[in-house]
């Protein structure tokens, strides 16, 4: 089975390619990227002229809610949302019920993913037993079952000794720790950014200093252990500066940012609608600008959605009691293109890099590239297509998103996983 994508603008940051070319896929692998590839009869040819062809997008940070919270999302719905959003590989966080803190759970999830998911699923294991932050989980065992990384996402590892143990212990397995960096005592009960708007609304805030302290401690421990650490969903201006300085002096720190923290501010918080409730929260315009600068200068390595669907009735209630998070897989490309690319703030090759080769590098995955013989995970994007975000059209089970109703410009129009087209024009092909 051969597939030829003809005449698109191929952006393949891993190989430094940005040119009009054809992409030939054969037996689930990339066969060739070059101009004017001749098609024989056995080849299915698709004209993608005027469109962008990239390695399949990778999202290092999603919540697929399996096991235990399938009323919010599952591999079937979540992976279809991923495919609709142009993603071919997503990593799922372990803050489920039960917490994914044992090899048998990794095995079970991989089995389910094979049965139900339409994109590649990577499993992130818990760093500590039940994510309690007290003792290391059997991370070695989980590595052997194929865990891609470790994280207590949703919780900060408060105990510095535990994190240091994790950094040291994981050296044997060459896997990274992803840190949800928020000093717990400073964010307790907080529902939005601590700032002018929270002061006005009387809502409890989560100050940026909580993130800054946590990021600084993580950097210092990683530096001390000479081990890698990855800062999840960075959102504070000062935290970006801390990572920048640490990278300069050679600390093995990497970081990621969400589309919403790259584009939205606390002013958008509507106390009557929990759609904007998320952790870390939407910050100020100054923070948003710092996120964009961090992405451009390499301080921030990846764009992740932190896709976190909740059941409709869980979000449809008082802001304070609603859970944090919203789905992001199906809106990420549209939001990034509309607010960053079309606004002239960040160019296309950089956005593609932060969603393909760069996250692959952080995870040490053989993905995010159009090199010969790489898995044929490919995304085709129409940067000009205009569309309106409608929850009725979501594949995710999550029905609350701050992007609903927005008019966006640009969307993925084809997702190819292992050489097979699984999404075309927004429709999943099962």
């Amino acid at each position, binding site marked *: 089975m051969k597939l030829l994508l003809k005449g698109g603008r191929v952006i393949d940051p891993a190989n430094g390619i940005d040119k009009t070319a054809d992409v030939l896929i054969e037996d689930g692998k990339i066969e060739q990227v070059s101009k004017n590839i001749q098609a024989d009869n056995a080849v299915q040819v698709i004209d993608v002229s005027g469109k962008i062809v990239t390695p399949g997008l990778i999202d290092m940070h999603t919540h697929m809610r399996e096991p235990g919270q399938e009323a919010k999302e599952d591999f079937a719905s979540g992976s279809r949302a991923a495919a609709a959003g142009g993603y071919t590989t997503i990593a799922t966080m372990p803050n489920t019920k039960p917490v994914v803190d044992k090899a048998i759970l990794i095995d079970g999830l991989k089995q389910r993913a094979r049965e139900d998911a339409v994109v590649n699923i990577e499993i992130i294991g818990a760093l500590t037993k039940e994510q309690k932050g007290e003792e290391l989980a059997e991370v070695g065992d989980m590595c052997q079952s194929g865990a891609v990384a470790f994280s207590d996402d949703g919780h900060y590892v408060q105990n510095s000794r535990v994190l240091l143990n994790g950094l040291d212990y994981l050296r044997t397995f060459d896997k990274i720790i992803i840190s949800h960096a928020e000093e717990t005592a400073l964010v307790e009960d907080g529902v939005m950014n*601590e*700032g*002018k708007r*929270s*002061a*006005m*609304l*009387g*809502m*409890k805030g989560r*100050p940026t200093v909580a993130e800054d302290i946590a990021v600084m401690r993580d950097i210092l421990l990683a530096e001390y252990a000479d081990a890698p650490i990855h800062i999840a969903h960075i959102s504070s201006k000062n935290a970006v500066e801390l990572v920048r300085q640490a990278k300069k002096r050679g600390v093995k720190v990497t970081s990621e940012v969400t589309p919403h923290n790259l584009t939205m501010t606390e002013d958008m918080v509507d*106390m*009557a*609608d929990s759609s904007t409730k998320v952790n870390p929260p939407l910050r100020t315009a100054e923070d948003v600008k710092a996120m964009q600068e961090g992405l451009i200068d390499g301080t921030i390595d990846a764009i992740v959605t932190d896709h976190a669907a909740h059941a409709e*009735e869980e979000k*449809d*209630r*008082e*802001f*304070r*009691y609603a859970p944090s998070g919203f789905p992001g897989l199906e809106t990420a490309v549209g939001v990034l293109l509309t607010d960053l690319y079309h606004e002239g703030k960040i160019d296309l090759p950089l956005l593609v890099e932060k969603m393909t080769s760069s996250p692959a590098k952080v995870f040490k995955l053989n993905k995010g590239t159009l090199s010969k013989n790489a898995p044929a995970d490919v995304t085709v994007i129409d940067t000009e297509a205009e569309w309106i975000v409608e929850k009725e059209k979501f594949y995710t089970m999550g029905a609350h998103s701050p992007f609903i109703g927005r008019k966006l410009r640009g969307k993925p129009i084809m997702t190819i996983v292992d050489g097979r087209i699984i999404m075309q024009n927004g429709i999943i092909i099962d």
Partner: protein
Amino acid sequence: MVESKSVSLRGKNILGLEYFSPDEIELVLQTAKEMKNIISRDIKKVPALRGKAIVNLFYEPSTRTRSSFELAGKYLGADVINITAGSSSIVKGESLRDTLLTVEDMGVDAIVMRHKAEGAPEYATKVVKAAIVNAGDGAHGHPSQGLLDLFTIRQYKGGFKGLKCAIIGDILHSRVARSDIWGMRKMGIEVHLAGPRTLIPRFLFEEKGIFIHDRIEDAIENADVINVLRIQLERQKSGLFPSTREYARIFGLNEKRLTLAKKDVLVMHPGPMNKGWEISPKVAYSSNSAIQEQVRNGVAVRMAILTLILTGGKSNEITA
């Protein structure tokens, strides 16, 4: 009855004083004046809201707000019922949405709501068509309290412009403070906030006419009005100040501190008071105190609010 400049609150939700124009505030205060006359009569009942149904939906305990909304509705001839969290299906876990829909299905015209969560009344406006009156939502707002505080100030001071008001205590968790700040600023009162810094929000209203002080003496100095906020024991337990004893000594309003203010200073407190903590009994019952008058005015202001949103406040309907 005053029909001021075609301003009307008919059909509106009362969610917070930030949404009020000065003219709308004026309309409520003038209407409340008429209402106060009604309450002082021997026979209080007027038929202005006859045939209207009002539900007091209270998710938090309340004495004065709930009973004054109830009496306000009843003096105006409306049918008023109370639903409180402890004695309803809320205990069984019914969501706010479903409770609101249930109440609406019974055909009510207005829902007066008290809730722990900031924004809950605003959320309610998206669920039901009945008019929503915020009777206090978390630390966000308590618009009827803000209005009755303004009404009380005008009663004693004759006006607003150029007055200096000190608001003392737990600003951070206080919906009363936020409503007062909005209302007072809109009417031209200078607002001075003071209390332990642990109870003053960072980034608060960095704008003209609002001042934050570290010592309450600086806020009280030369004040025309002092509004003392209730201090909750829970705040001490969560470490925001070391002890109620120390609070009383350093941040409490006592007779000595009162002498820093203008001689005719008006002392207010939204209640319930912790006498001996944030306010000394002598000050609370002094001739400067308007605390009891605030309660009386609360009924009048709430009558005004209910009338204005449900009928627009036509004079013939009120005094008929």
